[in-house]
């Protein structure tokens, strides 16, 4: 069977620096939650930028639904069904919460459907609903993360890329974000979760890849990796 999503032998250079040294990664089927874990500077966000077309790799392939993503312009990636919750949230601080959601649905043309989705999303995120007319820059970190996720959902993605959604959040909020990820997954959204928080990521993922300085050093079933001595020592600190 063909994979839903695959990265093959990806190489990225920043000038003379060989940042990504031939990584391969797959999402085998719809509804799968795959996690890419690694420390700061391992190259996680670099890979995400390649997927969203913001960065061109020197070599390799990124295929989604049989489509060569490296040939798609960055602004057309979203229309293929692939949305991103970017690192650092990248919410639009000067726009209101509601306008941020509207921008998430920018490529959709049916106004009435978009309006209905905004209503539904706001029901799902009551705290965003309370602040719907506030500039998004005035939200707290946790609320901004929720907004970034909600905004990505507005395009009705088939594959959701999440780049460090737990970054900079208090433990309670991290749990909230991970609960939400599980909820989305149970609704059938395929998710690629990039995380530094290995324990949390492994506890909810189906499969996982461990990235270390531009190379995949481990891969496997997430629950087995949680039990693996070497991984526990190196990434979970136990």
């Amino acid at each position: 069977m063909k994979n839903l999503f695959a990265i093959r032998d990806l190489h990225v250079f920043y000038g003379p620096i060989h940042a990504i040294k031939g990584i391969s990664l797959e999402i085998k089927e719809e509804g799968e939650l795959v996690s890419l874990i690694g420390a700061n500077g391992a190259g996680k966000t670099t890979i995400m930028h390649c997927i969203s077309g913001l960065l061109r790799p020197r070599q390799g392939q990124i295929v989604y639904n049989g489509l060569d993503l490296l040939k798609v312009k960055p602004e057309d990636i979203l229309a293929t069904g692939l949305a991103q919750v970017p690192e650092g949230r990248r919410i639009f601080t000067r726009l209101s919460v509601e306008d941020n959601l509207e921008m998430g649905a920018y490529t959709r043309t049916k106004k009435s459907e978009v309006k209905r989705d905004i209503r539904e999303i706001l029901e799902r995120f009551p705290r965003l609903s309370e602040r719907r007319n506030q500039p998004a820059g005035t939200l707290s970190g946790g609320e901004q993360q929720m907004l970034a996720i909600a905004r990505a959902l507005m395009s009705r993605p088939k594959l959701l890329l999440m780049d460090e959604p737990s970054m900079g959040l208090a433990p309670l909020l991290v749990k909230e974000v991970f609960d939400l990820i599980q909820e989305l997954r149970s609704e059938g959204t395929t998710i690629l979760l990039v995380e530094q928080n290995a324990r949390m990521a492994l506890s909810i993922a189906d499969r996982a890849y461990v990235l270390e300085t531009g190379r995949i050093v481990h891969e496997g079933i997430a629950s087995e990796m949680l039990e693996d001595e070497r991984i526990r020592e190196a990434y979970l600190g136990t």
Partner: protein
Amino acid sequence: MTYFILQFLNGLQIGAIYALVALGYTMVYGIIKLINFAHGEIMMTAAYFIYFFMTLLDLPYFLAVILAIVFSVVLGVLIERIAYRRLRNASRLSALITAIAVSLFLQTLYAILFTPDPRAFPLTASSFPVLEIGEITLSSWTLITIVVAVIVMILLQLFVTRHKAGKAMLVVSEDLKGAYLMGIKVDRIVSMTFAIGSALAAIAAALYIVSYPQITPYMGALPGIKAFIAAVLGGIGLIPGAMLGGFLLGLVETMTRAYIPSSVAQLSEGIVFVILILVLLLKPAGLLGKSEREKV
């Protein structure tokens, strides 16, 4: 007191024109971080368009202005396509030098085509009725200019806060990469921004040449520079900043000219620059700008 009110209105009038031109600078800077030094020349070419439509085609002023807006929009969009687009990822200095080149090119082109001799614009403020409000007598054109400019600015503000494409423009200006992630067609938004900026410059030209009815290939340079200063004064990249900066600059300039002895009247131009330097020393990001460190 009447003298003060009169000068105040005059200041608002020229300030409104600076504000319209400043909006073009600030919006373009906001989205592609380019100081479009050819923006003043859009104003100049618009003035020529209006002049020729009126004198050669015998069109009424209003119709000539509408046509000039259309032509200026086309010119502005073409300049971006031909000169700036391929430099989008080049160093800012290369783009800046290109903008200066486009500015000089248009000035020279018009000087060759239409000679550098000034042409008198057929319609002047004196052809509009004089208003007498209490002890103040002023041309109705002064009020028309202010009202038209304010209406245009309100429309622009509604567009960027209510319309999807207007919001997308704010998104591109805040976070280009984020805009790509939303599927926003950035090139189209950039073209749209040049189109709006050029339309505003053409409207500014239409208002300007009635009060200063002399058309030359270099007429865009000084108002262009002042509008640029206005944009920086208010906080470059910020639409409300350009409006505030424009009005403020017009007021300062008119007031200094009105209240300093005429023997040193030339100083008023200099005072504008002194104010700019002071503001930038105290608030480097402009009056409405927040000092932010640049994000990677």
